[in-house]
């Protein structure tokens, strides 16, 4: 016999109350796990996208906001707002190694929305370091065909020579790119002029990705670009931090939601423990009467609530894991989340996360148990004699 065994036996005495209290903390921890990893996954996704863009400076239209930054990073449709003629002038600045224009357009394949990007074929291929898996890459800037990412090819079961239709015009697939692991895999590429013509656009692009030979002097290059055109010019890091900023506020929102669930669970524990202590007043008195010190009584009840925390953390982790996996596709379709790209929102198992969750859960439960356990430890041996 020891205090742990006593606590364990007490805990499961009222099955219903045990189950519902445990459910409370399980749900609280599950939402914490799911929302925390969702936030973290979004974050690492955005960071990865910024890495892949491989640009030191991004030149955008005058309208400059986190959502545009995010669209740049995610390679999604953006209004064409940068005059094409500035591309060559930026490329001409001393020390600038490349200025690669992107015209990102919304299009669809088999009724599924995709991103179609108008590019300067040779510049883009060199900039992105593409390898061509199948077929022949664009041979001229005026070729009326498309090159597709490997993800698009497998998703829609496409192969070289098949035709895609945009704006009523057919475009043969000239080549399929090797897998890159980036958004290029899920994009369709078309020579810039052909894209402008097909979509009836003037000679504008969405943004320009610029690389420089010397990042230390980046401010100088930015000033030089701003001299050329009245446009918004940012470093890739500024872009990233602007997106991370909205992500941060999203994270805080998510964690607040989880926090509310956890607070509710904590009150569930307090409530259960106080009720249990009221019911067991007499038994506590008996324990005191046969020699139990008040510290032992305190320990028994702290152990009981700590056990709620431990089990709740364990189950919460498992439930959060399973639910986030099951719900990942749904969450990705959610408007709110989808403006942040299509990240994987499922919980990734890690021992560190498990220990964090267990630690937090036990901590919350023990704190919740402090007051009830203190109340229990104040009861006197005379409780054994009263209320006969």
């Amino acid at each position, binding site marked *: *016999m*020891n*205090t742990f065994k*006593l606590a364990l*036996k*007490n805990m499961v*005495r009222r099955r219903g109350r045990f189950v519902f209290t445990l459910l409370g903390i399980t749900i609280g921890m599950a939402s914490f796990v799911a929302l925390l990893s969702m936030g973290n996954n979004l974050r690492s996704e955005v960071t990865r996208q910024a890495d892949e863009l491989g640009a030191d400076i991004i030149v955008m239209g005058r309208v400059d906001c986190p959502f545009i930054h995010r669209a740049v990073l995610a390679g999604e449709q953006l209004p064409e707002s940068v005059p094409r003629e500035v591309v060559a002038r930026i490329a001409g600045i001393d020390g600038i190694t490349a200025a690669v224009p992107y015209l990102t357009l919304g299009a669809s394949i088999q009724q599924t929305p995709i991103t179609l990007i108008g590019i300067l074929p040779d510049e883009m291929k060199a900039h992105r370091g593409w390898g061509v898996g199948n077929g022949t890459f664009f041979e001229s800037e005026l070729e009326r065909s498309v090159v597709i990412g490997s993800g698009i090819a497998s998703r829609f079961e496409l192969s070289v020579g098949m035709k895609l239709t945009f704006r009523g015009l057919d475009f043969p697939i000239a080549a399929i790119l090797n897998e890159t692991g980036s958004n290029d895999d899920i994009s369709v590429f078309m020579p810039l002029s052909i894209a402008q013509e097909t979509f009836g656009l003037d000679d504008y692009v969405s943004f320009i990705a610029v690389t420089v030979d010397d990042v230390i002097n980046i401010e100088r290059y930015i000033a030089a670009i701003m001299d050329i055109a009245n446009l918004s010019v940012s470093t890739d890091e500024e872009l990233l931090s602007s997106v991370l900023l909205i992500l941060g506020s999203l994270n805080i929102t998510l964690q607040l939601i989880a926090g509310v669930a956890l607070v509710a669970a904590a009150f569930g524990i307090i409530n259960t423990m106080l009720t249990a202590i009221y019911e067991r007043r*007499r*038994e506590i008195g*008996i*324990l*005191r*009467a*046969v*020699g*139990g*010190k*008040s*510290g*032992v009584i305190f320990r028994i009840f702290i152990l009981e609530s700590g056990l709620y925390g431990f089990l709740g953390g364990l189950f919460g982790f498992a439930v959060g894991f399973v639910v986030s996996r099951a719900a990942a596709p749904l969450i990705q379709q959610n408007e709110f989340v989808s403006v942040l790209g299509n990240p994987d929102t499922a919980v990734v198992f890690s021992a560190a996360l498990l220990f964090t969750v267990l630690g937090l859960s036990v901590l919350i439960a023990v704190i919740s148990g402090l007051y009830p356990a203190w109340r229990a430890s104040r009861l*006197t*041996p*005379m409780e*054994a*004699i009263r209320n*006969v």
Partner: protein
Amino acid sequence: MSDFVIETENLEKVYGNKERTHALRGISIKVPRGSFCCIVGPSGHGKSTLLQLIGALDKPTSGRVSIDGVDISSLSDNKLSEVRSKKIGFVFQFFNLLENLTVKENIQTAMMFSKDNKKDTGKRALGLLGVVGLSDKANSKPSELSGGQLQRVAIARALANDPPILLMDEPTGNLDTESEKDVMEHIINIHKAGKTIVFVTHSNEIADRAELLFEIRDGKLKADYAE
């Protein structure tokens, strides 16, 4: 060491704040080591109160209680717990066993509170159940036992840490005559084995067996008789 294992001096107990009940009005008794004493008196006149003060379950309003030569009136809460654990076994009228534990676990729980007595609790609990003739009920729950059996378990629990003193508040008050006889037999045997027993009772038959009799009336010691 004193010959008296329990001594009280001018013990007073007042219950309540608004409606005050003066339950004990200055009681001084001495209980010789190894004796079998009974406390008798009319209902509501303070017998249980006296026993609870001796048993360190409650604190006197004024006066002193010494157990085994130690004045316990001024001890801290933790020290009182140690006195209850080491020096005293209390047997209640209503058994007071923990319902969700087995008979054996009930006895082991009392053992677990004693600092120097934590080994072999299972074996020792079984031994004590043998003393009260309940070896076969070790793994039963209290709800599966008769009143007489429950009280024998409670006695075994009171013996858990081998205390010199057993305090019993009408331990047979809730039992039929058959069970009462059975339980009394075990108590007498335990007394013969050397324990000091203080026993509150309404039964003349039991009181007749006492070596020392304290009669309490209106919170005062009306008389004590040695046999």
